[in-house]
């Protein structure tokens, strides 16, 4: 199960400054786009109009940041209703959210906060995934978090997420940069993590840049999506794709947005690695 109808090519996080560039990009690259639905949860306006136009030409992924799946509270029904409205209007090829929380007692914390990998947290997470999937009538993908601290747990994070997928029937969005950043920050083996995820659970892959913490330096990497993708992350991605085959892969950039051409260089590089995998498969047939 891949839980995703995205093309098995590279896509790009869609930013308003790139709407026109995306429309004009060559169609033969199979470029697809991903947006945070929260930026489109308005009654109307030009952003939604642009997305409607772009949606007519590109496969679309809705990637939420605010549903708080790993929260201790039931999901916000109002927010879920707005999700449903977007899903009905834009019919996205893929729907995803994070294994993180951001809402508590009516306050939105505007960050993806961590949850420990415990049995109790697993039950809460799978209940929330069930609620989201039932409300939207769609299977979702869940994304592994970037961690800045090592929380005590009752199982490995990879096992925790795979178990959540198995129990709820959802797929996984494997963020390779998050794997790298977390491994660096809490002393985990990034390669072993990537190797532990079953290929058929992975519906999408994320690649992004990170930055050293201003105080602690390289000992603490911040998942800021504000820099080009680092070479060790590309290496980890290549290791993954060689094992699992091509997967829809997103180039994410949410800060220090560069000219579109710069993002397309990373899109081309990801496509080259995806096609390298295809050539290898073809060579063995």
């Amino acid at each position, binding site marked *: 199960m891949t839980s995703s109808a995205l093309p098995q090519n590279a896509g790009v996080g869609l930013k308003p400054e790139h709407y026109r560039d995306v429309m004009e990009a060559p169609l033969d690259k199979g470029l697809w786009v991903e947006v945070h639905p929260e*930026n489109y949860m308005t009654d109307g306006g030009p952003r939604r109009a642009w997305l409607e136009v772009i949606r007519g030409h590109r496969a679309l992924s809705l990637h939420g940041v*605010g549903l708080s799946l790993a929260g201790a509270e039931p999901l916000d029904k109002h927010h879920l209703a707005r999700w449903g409205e977007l899903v009905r209007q834009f019919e996205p090829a893929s729907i995803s959210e994070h294994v993180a929380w951001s809402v*508590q007692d009516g306050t939105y914390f505007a960050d993806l906060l961590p949850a420990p990998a415990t049995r109790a947290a697993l039950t809460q997470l799978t209940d929330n995934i069930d609620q989201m999937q039932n409300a939207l009538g769609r299977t979702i993908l869940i994304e592994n978090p970037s961690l800045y601290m*090592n929380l*005590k747990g009752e199982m490995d994070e990879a096992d925790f997420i795979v178990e959540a997928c198995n129990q709820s029937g959802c797929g996984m969005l494997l963020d390779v940069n998050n794997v790298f950043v977390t491994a660096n920050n809490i002393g985990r083996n990034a390669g072993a993590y990537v190797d532990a995820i079953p290929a058929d659970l992975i519906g999408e892959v994320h690649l992004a840049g990170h930055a050293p913490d201003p105080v602690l330096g390289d000992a603490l990497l911040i998942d800021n999506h504000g820099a080009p993708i680092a070479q060790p992350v590309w290496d980890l991605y290549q290791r993954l794709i060689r094992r699992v085959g091509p997967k829809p892969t997103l180039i994410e950039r949410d800060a220090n947005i560069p000219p579109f051409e710069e993002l397309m260089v990373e899109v081309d590089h990801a496509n080259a690695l995806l096609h390298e995998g295809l050539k290898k498969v073809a060579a063995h047939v």
Partner: protein
Amino acid sequence: MSDFHSQFISAMGGQEERLEAFLTDPTHMVRARVYQNNSVTATADAIVKNFPTLEPIVGTEFLRATAIEFSNQHPPSSPVLTLYGAEFPVFLESFTPAASLPYLSAVAHLDRAWTEAMFAENAKPLAPQDLASLPDDRVSGLCPGLHPSTRLVESEWPALEIWQANRNDEAQGTVSIEQGWFGVFVWWSANGVATRQLEVGEAIFLKAIGLGASFGTAIEKGSSHAAPETLFNFFAEALAAGVFANPTITSMGKPS
């Protein structure tokens, strides 16, 4: 609330020791600040982005500090940060460090109105051709209401002039800042968000329409401060600009 989630929020608030029981490495307690910093940065960024006219007036550093103070008192309740900051203009009215800029709140109200107009429902406005075949008395009896994108900002400062001089990169000269009554109408037009300075009578007319009055009654009310011909001209201009709502003609003008 689970114990972990509750302690994590306390740690983000500065009580980092609350996390000790949940960590394999107690030295990681200080890293709660990373999450706090990310959270504060994202909310402050949203305010700076949603009130772009304030930055050239007060400078980036002052605006960010103000945004952080605001977000501490009014944290977002929704992940839709595009619409975050509804209370910010009112917050500025009593924000002591900005007391030397008494018009700042009025300018923020205009930024907010601009955002609300921009993201309002895409409803089709009433157009001149919708009324072309109706007799005058029928038009006079219509109660269309205002288009959902419309906002009226009233203040005692020339907010629109200050706003226009700072909203775009090119400064448009100095603004003479004198107190008085200033009304600004903001709405979504065919060319994007539009603004117009109002006379008192025009504001009274629009407010009456917004409250459900008929065109005839609204013009009568506005006539207390403007000549009827002026208001008829304004009615035609507003109709062409698409500021009235568009209920179906068949149901309009009927006695209710």
